[in-house]
């Protein structure tokens, strides 16, 4: 009779056993990580779409993709980047960090949190199902091809046959419900789950930013969803809100869309502001300069951002009074934005600046966001905008805000909190390679776009004739796009490798000051063994410097 070992064998988990704790999770950290992973997957998809577009535009009269396919590519690229990359990255960081930074065990409504994630994910899948199911009628195409701002009446059934626009409406609307759920959750969490001693003035700036951000989401998304429902009524039930052939209004859609769309760009940039406001102090070894001014500036941007939307509409023939009003309100945004940049610089001034990769991304953020802000001021000068509007200058401008601003900020955050979320450190050389290739590729791609705008190149054209002065700049842009793709490949390799093989990071690898660094890496499901008590905005500084704590000065 064979003698069997009674020692326990290491158990091999089946795929479903390994997936179940994620799929069924209501843990804010797991949801946060799932948000970020899903967003990064969509980033690769939308990046590939951008590469295809850049390949098509590399030389004049190119035939890599058909006109209809090109139009689908830029529609899906824009929609994906805003709703399936930007919004979930934002939600992912918020979910992961807000409870940890507040010294809480989870979000206020964990199951609503899970609902938000799954609504976003299935909304995204529904949008992409358009490639399969969008046809509806023979010859009417597949995915949506109406542009990410889907101007009426191009979206009406007379001009957009089949079902692709319906998939755009429903998919985006579903992700919007997810964002609303997530925003309500953040507001409830920050207002009611702060640990003892953490009054609002001691709340970390990232959490402050996300609180304002969530209010903006609550204000901005419903107008979009309302307009989408109206459009659906037009398309499927014979209503005429935007149907100009039956007396509807084409401009009504633009107002609805930009009442959402302009706050939306601030919704996307606020988390980047928040990350930079956390990373810059730690890597300058100084507290943030002018905390209250930073919060006040964000509140000001939030307020102003709800009254600037028609600067997207300077060319529709508004009265001079309206044009002047929206030009002025848009320029006002420059003041609080300037305050923020000055405060970051003042934080760095006199510090000991450690140029680790998260800090490199923050420096690149400040530089490129400065340019984005200044080109934004140019666009706000309505008479100048009559030339620049819908030209490649605009594409250059908003990619400076959304990559130079948002994405650089997100990468700073990913590199900064990667050790916290995985317990391991990334490879420094690959990370630096990622940074430099990405910045160089980014500038190669998007600086020339501003000049193409000056040379009269309109956006959203699938090809162009030679001899109009556009060839060289377009070719440089395409080269830059491929450099960016290589950079992203470095990032992906680094991430996959470091999750398994990176060296152990420990609880506090950056010698940082906010509460998430006081627990283990990765944090246990309950976050903190004992709910912490704080006396200042830098609780870990107080612990590390008992002879010179912050609360003496705040």
């Amino acid at each position, binding site marked *: 009779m064979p003698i069997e070992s009674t020692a326990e064998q290491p158990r091999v988990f089946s795929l479903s056993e390994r997936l179940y704790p994620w799929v069924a999770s209501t843990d804010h950290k797991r949801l946060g990580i799932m948000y970020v992973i899903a967003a990064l997957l969509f980033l690769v998809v939308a990046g590939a779409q951008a590469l295809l577009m850049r390949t098509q535009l590399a030389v004049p009269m190119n035939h890599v993709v*058909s*006109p209809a396919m090109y139009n689908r590519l830029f529609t899906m690229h824009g929609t994906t980047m805003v709703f399936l990359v930007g919004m979930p990255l934002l939600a992912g960081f918020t979910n992961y960090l807000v409870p940890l930074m507040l010294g809480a065990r989870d979000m206020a409504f964990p199951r609503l949190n899970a609902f938000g994630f799954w609504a976003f994910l299935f909304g995204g899948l529904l949008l992409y199902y358009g490639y399969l199911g969008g046809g509806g009628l023979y010859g009417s195409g597949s995915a949506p091809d109406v542009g990410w701002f889907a*101007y009426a*009446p*191009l979206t009406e059934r007379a001009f957009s046959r089949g079902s692709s626009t319906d998939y755009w409406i429903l998919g985006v609307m579903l992700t919007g419900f997810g964002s609303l759920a997530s925003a309500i959750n953040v507001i409830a969490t920050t207002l009611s789950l702060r640990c003892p001693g953490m009054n609002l003035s001691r709340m970390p700036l990232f959490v402050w930013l996300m609180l304002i951000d969530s209010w903006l989401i609550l204000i901005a998304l419903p107008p979009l969803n309302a307009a989408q429902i109206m459009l659906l009524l037009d398309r499927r039930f014979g209503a005429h809100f935007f149907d100009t052939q039956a007396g509807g209004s*084409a401009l009504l859609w633009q107002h609805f869309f930009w009442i959402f769309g302009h706050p939306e760009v601030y919704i996307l940039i606020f988390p980047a502001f928040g990350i930079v406001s956390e990373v810059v102090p730690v890597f300058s*070894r*100084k*507290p943030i300069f*002018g*905390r209250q*001014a930073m919060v006040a500036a964000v509140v000001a941007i939030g307020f102003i951002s709800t009254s600037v939307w028609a600067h997207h509409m300077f*060319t*529709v*023939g508004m009265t*001079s009074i309206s*044009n002047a009003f929206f*030009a*002025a309100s848009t*320029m*006002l945004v*420059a*003041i609080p934005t*300037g*305050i923020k940049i000055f*405060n970051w610089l*003042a934080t*760095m*001034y*006199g*510090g*000991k*600046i*450690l*140029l680790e990769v998260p800090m490199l991304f923050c420096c690149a953020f400040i*530089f490129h966001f*400065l*340019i984005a802000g*200044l080109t934004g*001021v*140019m666009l706000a*000068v*309505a*008479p100048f905008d009559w*030339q620049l*509007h*819908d030209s490649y200058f605009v594409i250059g401008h908003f990619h400076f805000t959304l990559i130079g601003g948002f994405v650089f900020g997100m990468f700073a955050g990913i590199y900064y909190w990667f050790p916290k979320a995985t317990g391991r450190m990334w490879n420094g050389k690959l990370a630096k390679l990622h940074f430099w290739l990405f910045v160089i590729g980014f500038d190669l791609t998007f600086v020339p776009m501003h000049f193409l705008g*000056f*040379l*009269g*190149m*309109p956006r*959203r*054209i699938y*090809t162009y004739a030679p001899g*109009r*002065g556009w060839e060289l700049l377009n070719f440089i842009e395409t080269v830059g796009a491929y450099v960016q793709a290589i950079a992203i490949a470095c990032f992906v390799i680094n991430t996959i490798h470091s999750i398994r093989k990176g060296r152990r990071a420990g609880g506090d690898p950056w010698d940082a000051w906010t509460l998430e660094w006081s627990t283990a890496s990765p944090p246990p499901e309950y976050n903190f063994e004992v709910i912490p008590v704080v006396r200042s905005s830098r609780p870990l500084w107080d612990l590390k410097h008992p002879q*010179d704590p912050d609360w003496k*000065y*705040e």
Partner: protein
Amino acid sequence: MFVVVASILVLLQTGGLRERRVANIFRPLGTQAAHEYEIALFTFAITGAIFVIVAGLLFYIIWRFRHRPSDHNPDEPPQVYGSNQIEIAWTFIPILGVFVLIGVTSRFIFSLQDTTSQTPAERIRIVGHQWWWEVHYPDYGVVTANEIHIPVSGSTGRPVLLQLESADVIHSFWVPQLSGKTDLIPGRANTMWIDARAPGIYLGNCAEYCGTQHANMLLRVFAEPKPAYDNWIAAQRRSAQSDAAQSGRNVFESLSCVNCHTIRGTVAKGVFGPDLTHLMSRTTIAAGMLENTPKNLRDWVNDPQEMKPGSLMPSMKLTGAELNAIMSYLESLH
């Protein structure tokens, strides 16, 4: 040799006008574009100064305060929490700058938008279609497409008034060297003033995404001296002359071409496609996408979907004989 002959032919066809293909907004040749150029320079001055100062500060601070490997001092730098005086200073200085810019911008907006009481040199009504431009001269009963003729402002001293409408979706009229853009919105009539200070052919594009062939919805503005312009108008006012191609005309009129196209003086009275009355007086076809050569025209009529996929003109599946007949007719429409 070939190049010389070709360019002479092109010049003859275009009445000696030079095509200005590079539409640089910083080389304005119209009054509106010139004003927009002025305020652009002013904006560049302000934003450029801010850029130099702030970016300079950023690089200086990184360089000056970066941690050097030689620095082994483990102490943290002095902890500074902020300063209200400094915050107030860098709030109020930008406020001053922004208010100057708001003032100048508003003045430009009001002066450019609200001075419309002058008598226009010409009135032109432009209707945007997927994917071409319908051009009406209501004072002369002239209808053409895609190529807009105007008198040079030096010869009249007055700009041209455009009335912009759309038959389907939103388009945008943009000829960068003459003026910034104005949208053509269904259910609305926008107006804009343009003038050209120098003769030439000015290139532009539709600047609002309008569907599949948005890229190939080009604009050409022919700015001519007044006498040449008057000659052009006089020629356009005549009905179609096509005695030479009676058989071709019969074929054209027997097919569904007439449902979409108008040729004045014939039974062709369609309104969905471009007016063909003086087709051969245009230098381009397919909304500026192709040169108007016999070969291009033939290929286009034979299979528009091959030349411009998505175009609303169907491929008519003409027989070779029909195609020959129609071509001989179209080529007679001077």
